């Protein structure tokens, strides 16, 4: 469903991604790990269509479409969802109105009528319960004054309502206490299915204990330098990234 080929991307003239390749099939969970500055969040931004990033080479195909030609909103409506590392606070826009607008835009794109008020509220309540999100948050301004955990749960809540085909979790586990982590993971697992693929960008093993990735990739210096099963994450947790650097060094000198 997602095919990233030899992607090169830069911001402000600085090259961050330097030939990244990744293939994701429907329903797969891929973890992307890597040290700070390796390009993890850049990958998320490039996929979501953040305009500050320039793709200088390579291609991304999503469900048979050239993703790079689509605007951020078109990508979202095609079924791509980015759970932000730092969800933005938007005073004056209520969470409910925001999600309603997002959902109706997507439905319009799919040629569907806007959801009627009753069905919409039912959907909202159901998904809020899944994320154990206090109903009062829904009428408040989007993310404004939300705790770190509430913001991250709100991201997964939005994912639940919008029902994407591909979700990118950009360090969703950062800043979460263990209870919030459990709730987020439960939410993701409930919504993960054979048609819903997930990219988990993370520094740590702990979210992966819950999410069980099919593949783990190590991103370094703008490229995926090592891929493996979930045991790779455990190895990284134990040894740090140095052992990969050493391996790379050896392969270069061999």
């Amino acid at each position, binding site marked *: 469903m997602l095919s990233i080929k030899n992607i090169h991307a830069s911001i402000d003239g600085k090259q961050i991604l330097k030939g990244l390749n990744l293939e994701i099939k429907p329903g797969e969970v891929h973890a992307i790990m890597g040290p700070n500055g390796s390009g993890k969040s850049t990958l998320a931004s490039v996929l979501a269509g953040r305009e500050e990033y320039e793709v200088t080479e390579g291609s991304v195909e999503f469900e048979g479409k050239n993703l790079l030609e689509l605007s951020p*909103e078109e990508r979202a409506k095609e079924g791509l969802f980015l759970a932000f590392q730092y969800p*933005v606070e938007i005073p004056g826009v209520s969470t409910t109105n*925001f999600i309603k607008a*997002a959902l109706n835009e997507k439905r319009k794109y799919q040629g569907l009528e806007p959801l009627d008020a009753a069905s919409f509220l039912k959907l909202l309540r159901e998904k809020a319960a899944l994320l154990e999100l206090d109903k009062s948050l829904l009428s408040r301004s989007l993310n404004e004054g939300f705790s770190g955990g509430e913001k991250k749960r709100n991201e997964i809540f939005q994912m639940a309502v919008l029902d994407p085909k591909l979700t990118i979790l950009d360090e969703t586990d950062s800043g979460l206490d263990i209870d919030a982590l459990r709730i987020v993971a439960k939410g993701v697992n409930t919504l993960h299915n054979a048609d819903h693929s997930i990219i988990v960008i993370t520094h740590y093993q702990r979210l992966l204990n819950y999410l069980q990735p099919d593949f783990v990739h190590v991103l370094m210096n703008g490229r995926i330098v090592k891929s493996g099963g979930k045991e790779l994450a455990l190895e990284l947790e134990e040894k740090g990234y140095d052992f990969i650097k050493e391996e790379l060094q050896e392969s270069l000198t061999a």
Partner: protein
Amino acid sequence: MDTIRTEYLEERFKELQSAQTGSALQNWRSEGFKNFSKLGLPTLKNEEWKYTGISRLFTKDYTIPSKKDNVIDRETVDKAAIPGASGMEHLVFVNGKFNKDLSSFQSNDGFEICSLEEAFNGKYHEDAEAYFNKSSLFIKDGIHALNSSFMNESVFIKIRKNYHATKPFYFDHIFDTTSNHLLASPRILVVIEENANVQMIGSYYTHGSMDSFSNEVMEIVVKENARLEYYKIQNDTPNGSHTGTTHIRQVGKSYVHTVNISLNGGMIRNNTDIIMEEQANEAHMYGLYFLKGNTHVDNHTLVDNTKPHCFSNELYKGIIDEHATGVFSGKIYVRPDAQKINAYQSNKNILLSDTGTINTKPQLEIYADDVKCSHGCTVGRLDDEALYYLRARGINKDLAKSMLLKAFAEEIVMQIKIEPLKEYVEVQISDRLQLAD
């Protein structure tokens, strides 16, 4: 270039005076015209008029009808009025003059409405002498003097002690420009007695295709433990220009809340002055100017702290599109005796076009040493982070922008505490932003 003409005004002034022989306002008008002749129209060299070239409005001749005119019918009044007017004390002013026939209000023991002349000549003599025209001590320019020169069928309103008005007082200004350019000079004096509680609204509507220039002076006196909310709503046609002074004196410890919404019009200047003359006064001032076309809105505010322990909070927000211009000049005075006051001021602007203009000038003049004051202003574009966040959820760029602008405006709109008025403003803003609700 068209030349600026004011000479003909002398003739108009004489006409008015001779039509109103014996009026208690004769001497006031004479003094006004003397001042106008001396001061002339403000130019850009006048610091207070640096960004608003008001003399541009005087390249045409204005008619100044001296007699009561019955040119406006009921239908036009209904069209001009804001929604919910039927539930208000609806005071209609035609061409600057109070029109009792078109007005509808229910007199009761709580308030009285009469002409300024009646106030001077009758039982409100003391109020009139004490409070009338004191704004001229603060606004010393030819525009204020011009209002004094041509005020006619002006109104005095007394809100009596302990009266809690259940209906807002709505000053509905209609200008008839079907056959001539019009200069109107509405003049209103309101005295709110002790413990009274009142909401007031002003709106402006130009009926006709010629130009109107309304030059209003409204003086409001707020006494001990009284509460005033004043809403000024500007949604006129591009040929409707306006200057207005709202001069509020808090002569007793009291509470004042003002909201000024400017959406459409020609050249507009609002002076909102709050003079805190007693200890522990409290005032909240809000403004929203959401402009397009060639509309020019200049908000000048003054909070004059003359006594200790006063509190004021001021927030004005602007959205400027197309060729529009927004000006904000906010002055906070803290007099030497006004210790332990808190005064906050903020002006935030979003510029949507390359051809729009914003000038913002916060000014603090502090002569006391134990005070808390702050001011700040911003001019920017929409927040890119917020825009990206909305788009990343599938919301189209245009809709995302509209949602963010609505939210930006909402902080001011929510300060309108009269429900039908708030709804009206919300609908106007949603329409402008092409939002469904």
